[in-house]
């Protein structure tokens, strides 16, 4: 198991996917409304779009046609190309549970530093 320091805690933003170098690759970090920091791979599992340009948004839901509601603000990532939705907590596709999944990384906070554990 290896740990990589990728950034300082204050560098991670809410409602945005911020890229940080990790070895020869890139990891995207975001801060959920709870304050928890999540780290995911930078490429969409569908066709490989760069998720840095994705949209962090809420979860659209409804039980009634033509009534749109939103909950869980800041917890859903939409791909910049096709708009596929991913749950930032679980990494799962919202529309198609389990079939497509973001690559996720374990995050550890130590002092003011953010580490990715692999």
């Amino acid at each position, binding site marked *: 198991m290896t740990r990589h320091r990728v950034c300082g805690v204050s560098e991670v933003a809410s409602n945005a996917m911020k890229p940080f170098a990790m070895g020869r690759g890139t990891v995207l970090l975001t801060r959920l409304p709870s304050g928890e920091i999540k780290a995911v791979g930078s490429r969409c599992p*569908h066709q490989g779009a760069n998720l840095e340009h994705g949209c962090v948004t809420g979860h*659209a839901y409804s039980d009634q046609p033509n009534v*749109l509601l939103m909950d869980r603000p800041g917890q859903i990532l939409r791909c910049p190309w*096709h708009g596929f939705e991913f749950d930032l907590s679980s990494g799962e596709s919202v529309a198609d549970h389990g079939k497509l999944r973001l690559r996720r990384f374990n995050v550890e906070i130590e002092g003011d530093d953010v580490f990715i554990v692999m």
Partner: protein
Amino acid sequence: MLLIDADVHESFAGIRDLVPYLKEPYREWIERGAWRGFSQPFAYTSPGAGNRADVRNADGSASVSDYGVMRRQLLDTYNQTYAVLTGYFYPTMLKLQYGLSSALAAAYNDYVAEHWLAKDKRFIGSIQINARDPEAAAREIDRMAAHPQIKQVMLPVVDDIAYGHPMYRPIFEAAERHKLVIALHHTILAEGPFGMGLHYIERHTLLPTSMMAEVISLILNGVFDGYPSLRFIILEGGFSWLPHLMWRMDREYRQGRVEVPWVKKLPSQHMRERLRFSTQPAEDLTGDQWLKLIDLMGSDEFLVFSTDYPHFDFDDPRVSIPRSLPDDLQEKIFWKNGAALYGLEAPVQ
């Protein structure tokens, strides 16, 4: 082998056959010839003018309204276990005078109950409605649903109704209330995206596109989610397009779910669980093509055999479904899938 024929078109000889069943003032209207019934906006090109040319009475006259002819040519010839009567008189085609349209639907239902359903226990009945007045349609469904042979509601596919629109919900509520299947069938008004074309062959080739539009409308406007026990069958609308529609709708759903979050499942999942297709016209596929297609559909429970008797594009059950298909698959197409859809059991001999 047990056999359900999911699309059999009974008829009356003429609109005046409905007079005894019509309420006033519409009885008087029809009696004095105020309306002579629907007439298709095109000419049929088949030898039997839209019907099999051999559907005739003993005197040679054309007959699509004679139970005896149907029994001999269809029910007995093919030893059918059940035949689902689907009509071809769809009052929803009347675009105005909703009271007349609803009264015609009720009269036709009573006519069919007396002149067809009562004559043969092999018949399964469908309720005809005027879908343009959904509340009246729901009342007609409530009125007819108690008939022991009635198993479904016909939704006619015309040129200006996509049934996902919220105004049609009373129809689905009534059908679900009575555990009835919803059947979609084209009408002489059904069109493709640019109309009927310039030739009958264009219009007839385009019919599946109208069914695709209805499936898209029903699923994305929440009818499948809103009425979770309701089941649907597409009649005479083809089925080889289904893999495309499943793939396309799933892809659209993955990228556009945010606009229709009341749809809770992948469209393909809704289809596999709740949508069925009658086989006619079976497009003369080879056995290998059938198997490939069913593999692409991801289920062997979609298809329910149908003949479309007495129409000209009739499918003979002995020929249209390749005998090279595995026995268990043939049994599903000819019997099990339809029996599950309509809740039918093999009759006690």
